[in-house]
């Protein structure tokens, strides 16, 4: 009897002991202890409390001996902790997005402010630099004394080139503001100079030519100021960009404005198809930028050159047909005063034959 009792004792103890905890309850505990879960407690508190409640319900079910219920509730608690982690990610992403949005807005405001300020300061600097150039050009210079024949010839070529520059600058000024007093004075200098270049070749009037050029540049600068109250920096950049984007034109900027140089537009005395297409495009650009008067400058290679005023007029006509304003266009026959290649090199002399289309910067 006693032996039977001793044998049945372990069985009785085993039957009274609590059943093992479901594995899911341990899983829920371990998920709960992770740093991410602690983070979720602050970023997604409601979801975290929901998971905590489910874990507590699982404990209760286990205490009540409902092992399957405890297992399911613990699994649900694990899912709820995972859900809280995901909601914490959304919350954190929202905070990050808000911070980034604020930083973006601040940066964009700073960019816009700096951009506007940059345009304003650059325009001021451009203006000051032009004034410096005008003053430097207009500064009295030591008169050039007599020189030997070769130097006089070089001075004469230089005087003709400067005289042409002066004429084109004064013409550009006239296209912007025709009635400015400084322009009248500068034009007087240019007219005197032209007379001297025809009648009195020795000594070459190089000093007068430099002065005339400086006065015409000064007149152009003043004409720009009086013509407009707003800066043209942006407009000129835009025009240059458009011309560059057209391809094959290689536009450049000089004192007059934006310059496009064209060659081989004519076959005989007629515009080629390619030449006409080019002029059509440029005419449309001129139409799109009515603030910019257009100068057509015809450069010849010498006295026998085929390019002259007639060709300039044909080009002007083609530009007008494409949309340019005829009243704001001027044709200048520049002759051979501005060669780009030494005219004595016969092989390359034809390179000097070219047409310049100048979109005169109206300034501001």
């Amino acid at each position, binding site marked *: 009897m006693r032996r039977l009792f001793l044998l049945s004792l372990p069985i009785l103890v085993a039957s009274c002991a609590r059943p093992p905890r479901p594995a899911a309850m341990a899983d829920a505990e371990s998920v709960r202890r992770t740093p991410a879960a602690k983070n979720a407690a602050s970023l997604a508190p409601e979801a975290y409390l929901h998971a905590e409640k489910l874990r507590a319900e699982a404990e209760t079910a286990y205490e009540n001996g409902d092992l399957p219920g405890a297992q399911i509730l613990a699994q649900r608690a694990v899912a709820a902790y995972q*859900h809280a982690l995901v909601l914490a990610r959304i919350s954190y992403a929202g905070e990050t997005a808000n911070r980034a949005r604020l930083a973006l807005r601040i*940066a964009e405001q*700073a960019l816009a402010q700096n951009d506007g300020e940059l345009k304003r*300061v*650059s325009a001021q600097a451009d203006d*000051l630099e032009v004034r410096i150039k005008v003053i430097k050009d207009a*500064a009295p210079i030591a008169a050039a004394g007599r020189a030997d024949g070769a130097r006089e010839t070089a001075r004469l070529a230089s005087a003709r080139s400067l005289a042409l520059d002066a004429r084109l600058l004064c013409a550009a000024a006239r296209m912007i503001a025709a009635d400015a007093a400084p322009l009248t004075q500068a034009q007087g200098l240019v007219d005197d100079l032209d007379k001297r270049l025809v009648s009195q070749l020795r000594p070459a009037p190089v000093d007068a030519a430099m002065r005339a050029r400086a006065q015409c540049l*000064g007149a152009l600068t003043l004409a720009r100021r009086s013509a407009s109250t707003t800066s043209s920096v942006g407009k000129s950049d835009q025009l240059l960009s458009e011309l560059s984007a057209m391809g094959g034109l290689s536009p450049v900027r000089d004192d007059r404005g934006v310059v496009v140089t064209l060659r081989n537009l004519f076959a005989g005395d007629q515009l080629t198809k390619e030449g006409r297409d080019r002029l059509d495009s440029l005419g449309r650009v001129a139409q799109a930028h009515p603030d910019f008067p257009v100068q057509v400058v015809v450069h010849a290679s010498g006295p026998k050159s085929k390019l002259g005023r007639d060709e300039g007029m044909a080009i002007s006509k083609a530009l007008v047909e494409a949309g340019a304003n005829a009243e704001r266009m001027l044709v200048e026959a520049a002759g051979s005063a501005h060669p780009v290649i030494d005219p004595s090199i016969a092989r390359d002399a034809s390179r000097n034959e070219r047409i310049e289309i100048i979109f005169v910067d109206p300034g501001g």
Partner: protein
Amino acid sequence: MILTLGAALVSSATGEQLSDRMIAEQILATLGASSAQRALAHAPLEESKHALERAAGARRSGDIRHAEQLEGLSREWAETARDLVRAAAAEADAAALELAAADAGVQAERARALLEEAIARRGRAEAELAKLATDAGPFPTLPPTSASARAKPAKPSNTKGTP
């Protein structure tokens, strides 16, 4: 999927509260329609489906209480899957915004540097102009107005040389 969505619509139209099972099935149907979303939330979707199958088994055996608990588990995983997709989208948006903000910050810095350069350029020009104005008179310098003055070449003793 159409039946699930239809049942959900009818329940919501009649004001009847949706059961955990119906909500889970609705989310599973919605997410299952997109392969990208399916791939993104693969694990919780599978957990949700598995829980629904277990719930169906419990119902078949008459264990309604545990069947309902399993349906709750399915819903929990389905909602986790749905919000996982939302989290991925929110994180992508935030990353794109951070990138845009960083780019704009760099551009703003560059613009600031350009502005400083322009200010320095203007300062140099102002200084040079002030010096020139002292030497050569105020802008614009115009030539002598009388014709005689223009006609006469300047005497070297009366002129200033330029460098």
